[in-house]
């Protein structure tokens, strides 16, 4: 990486977006798995209400999994929404402003969700 800095920075070539591509798929698989884990627990016998719902998120392993998935979702949405800005918004200033908004929006939501999970 050392020879790749400054004016020598590699800006073209193969595999330039493969890290984003891969991270979006790995995070997507995590989110799908989490959806399944929550759904299965929700559909287990018993009345669906506060006790059951809060009970799903109470165990330590579930808090761990939820934290991982919330962070994964933030990364997943970042790659996806940034793709949208890169496709449709050409002026660099507007694109930068929208990307900053996206980061603020996502970091805020992820922080709020983490607060919800860990104060229970």
């Amino acid at each position, binding site marked *: 990486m050392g020879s790749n800095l400054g004016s020598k920075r590699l800006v073209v070539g193969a595999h330039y977006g493969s890290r984003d591509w891969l991270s979006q798929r790995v995070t997507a*698989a995590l*989110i*799908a798995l989490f959806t399944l884990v929550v759904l299965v627990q929700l559909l287990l016998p018993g009345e669906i209400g506060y006790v059951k719902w*809060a009970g799903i998120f109470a165990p330590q392993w579930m808090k761990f999994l939820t934290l991982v998935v919330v962070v994964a979702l933030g990364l997943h*949405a970042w790659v*996806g*929404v940034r793709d949208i800005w890169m*496709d*449709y918004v050409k002026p660099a200033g507007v694109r930068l402003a929208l990307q900053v908004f996206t980061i603020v929006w996502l970091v805020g*939501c992820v922080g709020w969700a983490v607060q919800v999970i860990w104060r229970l």
Partner: protein
Amino acid sequence: MANTLKERPVYRNIHISQILTYRLPLAGVVSILHRISGALLFLLLPFVVWLLDNSLTSEISFDRFASAFTSGIGVLPGGFIKLVCLGLIWAYLHHMIAGLRYLWMDVTHRMSKADGRISALITLALSLLLTVALGAKLFGLY
């Protein structure tokens, strides 16, 4: 030479203003809806975290969560909240099923026109059917 060639428009990406007029194959419909549903989920993310917060924090907040669907939130009526949730349900289902379709294509390398059309059809049918089923529950039809 230039005069004999018909001027043709070049679309590098389908612009938002072209979504309704651009004739897309079924796989293209799934693709653009994947993007639209993703953008919708991104924009509604604070509302989703609000739902998570109120449904989990305490029984009092859970009642506030439940009553959002009947008496609404602030000036927003309950019916509007239900409609937003219906939109969320569709967006999540479509985005997830279309995403699983892409993962399946990545793994199997099955990307012929015919395969793409069939899997797109399955994606649309499954996401719309599940949306109708869950939507009927949301609006108290069963």
